[in-house]
């Protein structure tokens, strides 16, 4: 366990940060969604994700045991310490960009949590199993929107193609794996990134085919790496907003 402890903390932060940043972007849709039903659905998905982030952070904070709690992990870390994948920090764009972002992430999230539900770490397995129920719905929902927009009108199809094109390049970062993941997967704690990537590809192909959308070539190496805190410029601004109160009033109790 001690050998894996630092790996595990890193891994939990990645899971937490992915959920947190995605949830933060969904908050930005408040009052601006294309229909009332979507207003509810987006906030609902966001709520699930921030709740999941809290679960991962709490576990990470316990392992860290350095006095920081889940809130401090969320609201007091700088962008270089954030471990989320580049995809989720991208701006919302129009509904097609948001749909593309959500779907590509949800497919990865679904397969990752499916694998983690069988983790030898009971705490991870429990958090993942609980999250998986929510993410199963997230994936169904975003997949249906890819289909609606891809198959709907000529305009929606063009926008969906543009939306996929806009964010597809970040899927290299989403699917790539490093030594930490490999060690944790070998120990039966983490998900096997290669297996997740293959399952992700199959899900994407299936949904894109239903939507009559071409599946782009695999994304190539992008020089940045969310897992190592090498982010796009969007994350810093996002965190400046999200962390404002904790930063401006460090002694406050909320």
């Amino acid at each position: 366990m001690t050998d894996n402890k630092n790996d595990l903390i890193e891994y939990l932060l990645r899971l937490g940060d992915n959920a947190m940043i995605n949830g933060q972007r969904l908050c930005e849709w408040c009052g601006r969604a294309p229909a009332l039903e979507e207003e509810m659905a987006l906030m609902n998905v966001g709520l699930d994700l921030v709740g999941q982030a809290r679960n991962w952070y709490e576990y990470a904070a316990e392992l860290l045991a350095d006095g920081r709690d889940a809130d401090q992990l969320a609201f007091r870390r700088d962008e270089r310490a954030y471990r989320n994948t580049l995809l989720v920090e991208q701006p919302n764009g129009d509904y097609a960009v948001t749909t593309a972002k959500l779907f590509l992430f949800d497919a990865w999230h679904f397969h990752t949590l499916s694998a983690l539900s069988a983790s030898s770490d009971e705490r991870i397995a429990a958090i993942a199993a609980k999250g998986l129920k929510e993410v199963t719905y997230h994936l169904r929902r975003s997949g249906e929107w890819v289909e609606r927009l891809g198959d709907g009108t000529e305009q929606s199809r063009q926008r969906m193609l543009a939306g996929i094109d806009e964010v597809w390049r970040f899927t290299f970062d989403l699917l790539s794996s490093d030594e930490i993941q490999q060690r944790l997967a070998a120990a039966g704690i983490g998900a096997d990134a290669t297996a997740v990537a293959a399952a992700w590809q199959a899900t994407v192909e299936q949904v894109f085919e239903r939507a009559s959308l071409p599946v782009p070539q695999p994304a190539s190496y992008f020089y940045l790496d969310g897992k190592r805190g090498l982010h796009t410029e969007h994350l810093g601004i996002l965190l400046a907003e999200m962390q404002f109160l904790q930063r401006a009033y460090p002694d406050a109790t909320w």
Partner: protein
Amino acid sequence: MYAQLVETGVKRVKSLEEMTPEERAFQERIDAEIKIEPKNWMPDAYRQTLIRQISQHAHSEIVGMLPEGNWVTRAPTLKRKLQLMAKIQDEAGHGMYLYSAMETLGADRDAEIDKLHSGKAKYSSIFNYPTLNWADMGAVGWLVDGAAIVNQVVLQRTSYGPYSRAMIRICKEESFHQRQGYEILLTMMRHGTQAQKDMVQDAIDRLWWPALMMFGPSDADSPNSAQSMAWKVKRMSNDDLRQRFIDQTVPQLEFLGCTAPDPDLKWNEERGHYDFGPINWQEFYDVLKGNGPCNRERVSTRRKAIEDGAWVREAAVAHAAKRQQKQNAA
């Protein structure tokens, strides 16, 4: 109160003798506290009044998400963020639920939303004030949802069945929001720094009077109240509701350790109520007319959301039609 100044289109309340047999049967049903259901006959003015009232209420739920949206991206902790997101989600749900109740009267949701965007339909004046610090999220929950509850508790007994049932359901969630809002303020006052305590007082100073205005003009200046009361669309007068709200809120204000921006606010032993100072009705009518601090932003944000989303809704309709076609062909 989420529906202020609802026009009834009626100059004077008819007596039973002046009514047609249909109108009379309708009024007698109301007098006997039997709910009016969508399929029952109803006077056109009753129908139109309810459409106006319920749509105002629904619009208020939706526009009311915007001042909260201003802070949901900046909520200070995971717990507060989750609470606020859940509250916003509830409000979208209330909006949907109320639009459905309104549609049972034969009104069309999109058409009524168009009226909101063109400035013809109203929503609660309170949402035209900005939320300027985090304590506003507490004060909105406590004072704004609190004022809404005082009104809605009474509206649970309103004469139109679907509206009454919507109110029963909505009241439960609103009470939860109100307690949560109060708890935000209480935490800041009890455990917070001086800067946080100042935020709380500042939020109350800004929102106190607009919250009192939520109940609408004084009875003397409320020309539509008599008909609405006779129809039991409205069940208590604006002034009575306002007094009830003040009476229940002042002890909570004192418990917080805060003050209201009203030097005339004091307990009147003889009346058994709190006395309070004059409300600036000029401000109320100004805000209602569109000249409040955020009217323009609120309406244009909503209009833009619906306009920008037109292609999305069209795509969903087109896709559903194509699917239907495929199913029919199979």
